């Protein structure tokens, strides 16, 4: 729409609303990172639309000075689909939580992924229902004692990323609230990907699930317990960058860094991304972060508008008069 890319600072994306998360909540860091990314995008701020559902995380739109729509629980991807269909020029973002996106909103999420609606979904996964005071969520590990599972939860959790891959998502990534540089890179890559892009952000809820990701994200152990998936780079990890991952016909194995496979998130077949998304299952493998999959396919809003354009070309632009003049008619004098 506009030609010269506007120049923004992070503070241009800070709204006048007081931020109301708990002190220490991981959401602050994410907000900060996303505001920085917004400033760097070069997208006119009036074209940015942030849609959310309900949850602590879903308060996000109030805090960014763009167009914002805090909708109802679980429905943000569907609202956002409507926004994007209405005006494909808009830059549409969805902010959601593990409950909002995966519990009540699971259906809209997988359908947005399937249809490849061009939007970025930031899934704040704190593995708990924050806003309703700490019940287990669809990503909570079994056994957890919460107000609704006083004797321990017996529900098996989702892997958000395998779910998205199973639904056909074209872009799937993971990052961490406290790893702000990584977060900014991944969020930026998600934005730049044309089509549906899901970013799972591991987010610490200090009140109800403090330290849920400490096993992977603690400063001390991080390098050994994470592997960053970088396009075109070998799958290397470890404090000393000495370890790597290699795919075998039937599995995946830890090898020396120089034997590691090179990562290609653009592989049209999602199988390897799926394999990596299961990495936290047998705990011996590091947790992959970064971009699991980045494959382009036709985007819904573009296809819909393109079809309308073609039909209009064929039939001519309809007017009120042409509408009234259509069909088998007869005159009564």
């Amino acid at each position, binding site marked *: *729409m506009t030609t010269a890319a506007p120049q923004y600072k992070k503070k241009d994306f800070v*709204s006048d*609303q007081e931020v109301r998360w708990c002190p220490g909540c991981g959401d602050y860091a994410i907000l900060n990172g996303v505001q920085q990314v917004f400033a760097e995008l070069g997208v*006119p*701020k*009036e*074209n940015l*639309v942030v*849609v959310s559902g*309900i949850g602590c995380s879903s308060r996000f*739109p*109030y805090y960014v*000075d*763009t*167009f*914002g*729509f*805090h*909708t*109802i629980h679980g*429905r943000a991807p*569907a*609202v*956002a*689909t*409507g*926004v*994007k*269909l*209405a*005006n494909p*020029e*808009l830059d549409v973002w969805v902010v959601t939580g593990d409950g909002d996106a995966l519990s009540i909103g699971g*259906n*809209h999420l997988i*359908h947005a992924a399937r249809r490849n609606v061009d939007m970025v979904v930031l899934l704040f996964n704190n593995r708990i229902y924050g806003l309703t005071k700490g019940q287990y969520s669809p990503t909570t590990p079994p056994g957890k004692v919460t107000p609704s599972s006083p004797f321990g939860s017996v529900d098996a959790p989702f892997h958000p990323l395998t779910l998205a891959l199973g639904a056909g998502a074209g872009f799937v990534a993971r990052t961490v609230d406290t790893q702000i540089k990584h977060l900014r890179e991944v969020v930026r890559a998600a934005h730049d990907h044309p089509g549906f892009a899901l970013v799972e952000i591991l987010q610490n809820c200090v009140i109800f699930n403090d330290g849920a990701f400490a096993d992977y994200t603690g400063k001390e152990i991080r390098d050994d317990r994470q592997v960053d998936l970088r396009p075109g780079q070998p799958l290397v990890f470890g404090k000393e960058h000495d370890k790597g991952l290699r795919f075998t016909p039937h599995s995946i194995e830890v090898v020396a860094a120089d034997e590691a496979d090179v990562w290609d998130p653009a592989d049209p077949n999602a199988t390897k991304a799926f394999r990596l998304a299961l990495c936290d299952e047998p705990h011996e493998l590091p947790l992959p972060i970064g971009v699991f999959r980045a494959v382009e396919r036709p985007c819904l809003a573009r296809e*819909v*508008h393109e*079809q*309308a354009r073609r*039909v*209009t070309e*064929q*039939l*001519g*632009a*309809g*007017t*009120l*008069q042409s*509408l*009234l003049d259509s*069909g*088998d*008619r*007869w*005159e*009564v*004098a």
Partner: protein
Amino acid sequence: MTKPQNDPTPVQEVDEVVIRFAGDSGDGMQLTGKQFTDTTALFGNDLATYPDYPAEIRAPAGTLFGVSGFQVRLSNRDIHTPGDRPDVLVAMNPAALKTNLADLKEGGLLIVNTGNFTPRELEKAKYDSNPLEDPELAEHYQVVPVDLNDITLRAVEGLGLSNKEALRSKNMVALGMLYHAYGRPLDHTEEWLRGKFAKKPKVLEANLRALRAGWDVAANQELFKVHYRVAPAKLPPGTYRNLMGNQALAMGLVAARHLSGLELLYASYPITPASDVLHNLARYKNHGVLTFQAEDEIAAVTAALGASYAGRLGVTGTSGPGLALKTEALGLAVMVELPLLVVDVQRAGPSTGMPTKTEQSDLLFAVFGRNAEAPLPVVAAASPSDCFHAAIEAARIAVTYMTPVLLLSDAYLGNGAEPFRVPEAAELPTFPVRHAQPSGDFQPYLRDPETLARPWAVPGTPGLEHRIGGLEKEDGSGNVSYDPVNHEKMVALRESKVRGIARSYRPLEVEGDPDADTVVLGWGSTWGAIKGALKRAEDGGPKLAHVHLRNVWPLPDDLGEVLGRFRNVLVPELNHGHLARLVRSELLIDARPITKVQGRPFGAEELLDRIRTELAAS
């Protein structure tokens, strides 16, 4: 092509006739009826149609539940319903005879396809003996037994079709016969067949032959004792088009898109009997209309709301069970005060109920069906062609008042057809929309003093960045607010806004007998039956007046005064008394419901009887 010159059959002019086609789901009765209707429409009759088909796609042949019916009434006068009981019944098989005979008028014309009255078919229809052999039949009806199967097979001989394929054309034989009986030309149907079977020349030829064979058999075998003629109707002058309600509704939405200058997104999940609105709209892609088939009704309504947020006219459509799923989002639409149009083509319930049958039983749900105080206006269409105008009215309200609007239709309106007088563009109300423009200190909840509408500030507009949502808002700024007094104020404001819509209604019209002390108050699709009942009451009484509500909620400001002029207020409804309840609670007037919950509309005669009974009881 009129009456062949050598045909000695006498011709009788009649004012109107009601014909019902009934046969197996696979017999093409809907198509046959529609062809007869279209030809009739082009001839200039007024008409009204009523299809009545089973929920099954193709129920097993010959079964009672598999019978599909299509009724058409044609008239030389202005009519409003497809008629109570048919004068002519075409029964393609025993099951069709069994399920429809009771409706046929005494002395009516009964055309039966004897070719299907085999022992097996009789058994499937649960007949112990062949009803055609019962001498009583001919005592009550003019029976015209014809072996349509045989005629068809002979007509298509030599085309190399299997028997099964050949017999698919037998509906055309029946149609040809009726065209002869009513002196209607074949050309419209012939042309239609040529289009439909352009790629299947054999099938086309079979159908054309069958159609002509029907005409010929009627002519040569003098099947009918008289030929009927229904003269063109003296309708108001203008251009007409035959439309089903769902078609008219779709066209009305497209018109609203042009009248408002907004582009439109229709987001919907298929559901009987509303799917045809989606199907029709999907063809208007060159009109700035997009359709989105969502994953469910919740996605449909929220996507429509998203589209409204982004500056389009967001519309969603469904039927009862789907409306149930939209209620949470409607509350959000009330809170964020965006325009949104929700079409409910009502069907018989509760729950899945009888999906292909009609009912008006979603009214109270439309008015009160949201958690907490979430008022919204309700508009209802009165007839198939009125669906066009009702859609425009609903859109006008939605964008003028920045509010979700419920537009009620029903299965009877949606699937029924009648001539639609195509308006001149200039007759239609325009309501051009101007989205909010950048301003110094933009306040998303600062209201228009007249309508109480808030500004419609669309993403993409520099300087209007703002945030809305489902939490209570501070008056003016729209910021989240938990202030108790602000909440009370906002609840009252939202209510006043909706209440104030009534100020934009046209004054109520009272039709009927000026001396009446009984008024029949109607809404939605009972309009035609009430008009019919009033016409019949002109001879023999009682004296009745008629008031119809196009805008059902909020109730019109003048309703209390108007109803107050009458001793009796009767409210016929295809439900258990919804409008009557609203009138009673709002106006403390003893409105008495006349209810019918059978999945079918009132007949005019039936309704008059019910009115008489009700008045006798009071």
